């Protein structure tokens, strides 16, 4: 019923089909591990890469994103029991962002579900889930196959990304709406066209697409994009630049903003979707799903903590800062999980987990920031205002058709 992918232990870190191209562009040789693959952290400079996302287009290799093909008679029933959203409305050609929880209603992971055809889905997640998927498959007629290494994936994100994709010949790309996917042909002069699955999805909060292709097509697609993009400010980017964009967009990163309940050891460190502001993904009316009864109970008594956006005074990012209720720093209110100086918002922003009582928009907390000033450490207690997320949400991310540059 279930098959596993090739054993990862044979090669500690795999290389993605884009690896050779990435390596030739990398000036820092700064690679990090991601789900068993080498992944670029920074190519040249984080700032340049970041501005490619916001002002032109960026290429980000997301092949290591763990992918599962889920099919069978019970595929929809299985996914609806697994995740918190009602996926019965998800038609072929659509993508849904969703989360799933353990029995206690604590978040295991988030991810996207692609409906490829009736009864045929692809689930993309940050971390391996096979164990949990197998447990969830007991009693369901469903086949689950890890297809991570069968699909090369490339994110093309930025205000000019639609134009860039049109320039490599993807006709009709401008009609693709957010959370839709379609298979488009990339014509080639001396070879057969490449079938590219394109989804209008991303992790930047900007206009952007994700391309899903056979590993053998990875280099030709990369080369085509780089060729037309070379005069348009297109850049390959690493995880650090992407991280800045996703904080501005208010997206959560596993192991940074929350630890999967599958990995937490200490009691109280797991997080529920209600605490993480993902309550809108939880559909209590669709029938039973794992964690539903626990989440209903949590909803009734109110979540204990809440993820919030913070606007921090000053310019120094509040990395890992403890948050207090007053300047005196006597009563802790929570702690910062992600923080940057946002170049686009020109604000010092952060994501934080705070006790639910402090989660009201407009409330002022105090961030205890440690600064390294030429090797002299200083401590600053600065006000941090609870603000709405996302910090940055340009209208172009949803415009269909997108602007034609």
């Amino acid at each position, binding site marked *: 019923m279930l098959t596993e992918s090739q054993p990862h232990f044979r090669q500690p870190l795999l290389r993605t089909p884009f690896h050779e191209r990435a390596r030739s562009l990398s000036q820092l040789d700064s690679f990090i591990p991601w789900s068993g693959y080498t992944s670029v952290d920074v190519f040249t400079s984080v700032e340049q890469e970041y501005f490619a996302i916001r002002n032109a287009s960026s290429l980000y290799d997301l092949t290591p994103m763990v992918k599962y093909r889920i099919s069978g008679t019970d595929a929809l029933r299985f996914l609806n*029991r697994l995740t918190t959203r009602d996926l019965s409305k998800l038609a072929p050609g659509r993508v849904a962002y969703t989360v799933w929880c353990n029995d206690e209603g604590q978040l295991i992971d988030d991810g996207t579900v692609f409906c490829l055809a009736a009864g045929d889905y692809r689930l993309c997640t940050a971390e391996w889930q096979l164990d949990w998927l197998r447990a969830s498959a007991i009693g369901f007629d469903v086949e689950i196959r890890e297809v991570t290494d069968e699909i090369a994936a490339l994110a093309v994100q930025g205000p000019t990304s639609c134009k860039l994709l049109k320039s490599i010949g993807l006709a009709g790309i401008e009609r693709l709406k957010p959370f839709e996917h379609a298979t488009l042909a990339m014509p080639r002069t001396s070879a057969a066209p490449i079938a590219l699955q394109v989804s209008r999805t991303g992790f930047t909060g900007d206009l952007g697409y994700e391309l899903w292709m056979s590993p053998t097509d990875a280099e030709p697609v990369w080369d085509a994009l780089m060729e037309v993009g070379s005069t348009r400010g297109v850049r390959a980017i690493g995880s650090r630049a992407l991280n800045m964009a996703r904080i501005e967009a208010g997206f959560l990163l596993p192991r940074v903003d929350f630890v999967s309940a599958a990995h937490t050891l200490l009691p109280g460190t797991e997080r529920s979707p209600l605490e993480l502001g993902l309550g809108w993904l939880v559909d209590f009316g669709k029938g039973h799903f794992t964690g539903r009864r626990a989440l209903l109970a949590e909803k009734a008594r109110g979540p204990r903590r809440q993820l919030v956006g913070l606007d921090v005074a000053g310019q120094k990012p509040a990395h890992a800062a403890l948050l207090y209720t007053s300047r005196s720093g006597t009563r802790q209110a929570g702690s910062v999980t992600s923080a940057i100086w946002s170049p686009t918002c020109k604000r010092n922003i952060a994501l934080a987990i705070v006790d639910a009582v402090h989660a009201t928009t407009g409330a002022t907390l105090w961030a205890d920031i440690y600064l390294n000033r030429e090797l002299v450490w200083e401590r600053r207690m600065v006000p941090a205002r609870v603000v709405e997320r996302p910090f940055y949400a340009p209208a172009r991310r949803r415009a269909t058709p997108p602007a034609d540059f």
Partner: protein
Amino acid sequence: MSAAGGLRYDSLVIGGGHNGLVCAAYLARSGRRVLVLEAASQVGGAAVTREFAPGFRVSACAHLLHLMPPSIVRELSLDRQGLELAATDLPTTALDPEGEHLSLSLATDAVRALRSRCAADAAAYEEWQSLVARIAAALHPVLNITPPRLGTEDWRDRMALLGVGWRLRRLGRRDLRELLRIGGMCVHDLLEDRFRLPLLKGALALDAVLGTNYGPRSPGTVLSLLYRAAAAHGGGSFVQPAGGLGSLSEALARAAVAAGAEVRTGSIVERILVSDDRAAGVRLASGETISAATVISSADPKTTFLRLLGCEHLDAGFVRRVTQLRSRGLTAKLHLALARLPEFPGLDAAALGGRLLIAPSADYIERAYNYAKYDEFSSAPVLEVTLPTLADAALAPEGRHVLSAIVQYAPYTLAGGWSAQRQRFTELLIDTLARYSPDLRECVTASELLAPPDIEREFRISGGHWHHAELALDQFFMLRPVPGATQYRAPLAGLFLCGAGCHPGGGVMGLAGRNAAQALIREAA
């Protein structure tokens, strides 16, 4: 009292085995309208008397009543409901291949006989039995409670935990220290520490592993021995109901009906119906649906959750725990129809009517167990034998007899398959018995062997385990059957469990049924 919400029944009990019937009787006594749905054509589940050869009847699984507390017999007035005892205080005798059989009684002459064979063992045996009695007295009340949960704020959980602690503390320093020392041990080590006679060690080891998936060297077997003693505390003698164990079930059914419950046989429950995330009734195989405010299942946890309820109504982690519940039986049952009473040289009439143990040493049992680990059966199997017709001639035609034996070990997934091996194994069992009764073979006119897959099929017990789920430390008390369903309550509102898969387990005790009824009544209060 009329049923809630205009429904005809307050509670449906799935399964008319002894636990289901006990539960129904107690619920009906509390004023609820209860309907028991039994799939078979007669009540009793595995506590049933049935014909296995023309004119020969026998208790199909357990053949002696040992663990049912007198309080249940009294509270449900089972004597007035027709429960008669054909024999009480049945003796236990360890059979010796050389004919030097050993009575395990604590009666004066038996102890004297043991002393003459080994004075040290006689003293050690008395001392051991007295320690077991003290521990059993301390642990016995634990069987009557809903197991507490850890880490809750519920005062009932805390009181129950305190109660367990207090009872153990009352054992006193010496006994508590000994309990903690031996509690996790294997029975083999314990017996090596205390006794010398292989026959005595074999008999005691058999009581520790009977009905389990363990051998004497398996960890936790002292616990199962003590647990059995705790369950037997307060009653404890081996009793043979007239008409077999089925009469007990019939008396329980009459008690339930007398209290106001209805009992329907031949009603196979196919599905537990769910409405608005609550158990709302059942659908029968006939297509009929019956609604009720609560559903109580005496079926085993796997059948209840995976088959009758369905995984889609449960959380994935819970379903995984249920799937991983160890519930395969390793115990078979042999029934022989005998043309006349076979001779057992060296046994007097009283001993012959009691329990006869074929387990000449602890190592003999362990060797038999070795084969079971690899899905084979041993050529030297372990048996607990009774001849029920000695006390209850009505079970067989005039002058004929029945031999009923519990057999260890009979793997569920036997190499070669049961259909191919059944006859060979039966012959082997008869040969084993013939070592103690030379003329047995010529007396046999018919035989029946119920292997775990047969028990699974006939009694609808997933895995064919008599206790529904192995009684072991990790499936015990606060962990039984699995975390998330330990208080007779399923994760789904309105659904309860009352079978042997719950605390305190099987063995024709009825306590799971009574505890479940009390938990349900308490919850409604």
